[in-house]
């Protein structure tokens, strides 16, 4: 009687090893996924904007240029000079895009957009330098997006004021 009860107890013990394995795999996955998804996004304090469009579904294959408040250009965590930035863009702007999206339009201009993310205290001339490089012959990127943070409160107030009118 005693022996049978003990065997039953042993049989009901749950082996936690596979579950812990899976959980650790998930943790590693999320840690890597965070790093992969955020490596384009430098930690910058961007200015608030009321008119900003949501950036939930960015165009596939968009390039990111970060400009910190010292005026350093950073792509994928790699600081670079303005000339290195130009070389980097030239190497990447005309690469094939996912889902068969067009690389050039009929006039030979790059269809790939570039998001410029700058700190609120960055001198605007550094952003203008990126714009200048984008307009150069052989690059000709015309779709530029300026990164901002959304001022939800002000947007809600503006919408309410517009509705009241």
């Amino acid at each position, binding site marked *: 009687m005693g022996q049978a009860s003990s065997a039953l107890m042993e049989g009901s013990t749950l082996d*936690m090893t596979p*579950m*812990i394995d899976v*959980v*650790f795999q*998930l*943790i590693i996955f*999320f*840690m890597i*996924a*965070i790093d992969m*998804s*955020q490596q384009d*996004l430098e930690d910058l304090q*961007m*200015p608030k*904007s*009321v*008119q*900003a*469009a*949501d*950036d*939930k579904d960015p165009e596939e294959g968009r390039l990111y240029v970060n*400009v910190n*408040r*010292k005026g350093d250009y950073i792509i994928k965590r790699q600081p670079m000079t303005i000339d290195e930035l130009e070389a980097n863009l030239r190497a990447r702007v005309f690469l094939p895009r996912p889902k068969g999206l067009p690389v050039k339009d009929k*006039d030979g*201009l790059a269809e790939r957009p570039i*998001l410029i993310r*700058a*700190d*609120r*205290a*960055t*001198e*605007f*001339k550094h*952003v*203008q*330098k990126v*714009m*200048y490089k*984008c*307009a150069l012959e052989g690059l*000709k*990127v*015309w*779709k*530029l*997006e*300026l*990164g*901002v*943070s*959304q001022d939800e409160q*002000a947007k809600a107030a*503006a919408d309410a004021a517009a509705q009241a009118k």
Partner: protein
Amino acid sequence: MGAKEEAQAETKMDMTPMIDVTFQLIIFFMCNIKFKMLEGKLQTYLPKDVGVNTTPQDKVLEKVDVRIIRKVTKKELDLDNIDRYREWSSAGGTTMDQVQILLQGAPVKDLKSLQAQLNEIRRKIPAPTDPKEEDSIKMNLEPMAGVLYEDVVQVVDIALGAKFTSLTFRGIELDA
């Protein structure tokens, strides 16, 4: 023999706290992955016709020039503490003690005043109803040396709010 069984029982580890912690970590990473993506963007376009003017001659264009000037010199500017250079009015706008804006060459009192004046221009020449149609008012933004990204975004924000969609930047001082 009995003592050996007792020793084995004592070495069993309670996994519950570790599982709790790992699940907490998973939840943290899952939430964190979404937080940073909530950003906004201002859509802008560089002119496609660099060096060539393709605008039809018969189309009369109204030009609005906005010049942004920062009165604090670069040496005086502490980039880690830019808020101390501006005072926020009770109405939520910025007072123009450090940033000066010239609209058609004339100084603007504050951002609210800029908004009112742009709305007035827009009232006289309405925005095209079709978003694909070219706006007949061109706005030239000229940020001068020392102007910060935030100063420009504020003006662009007001311009977009007044339905000015054709914005161009002028005055690139690459060596400044």
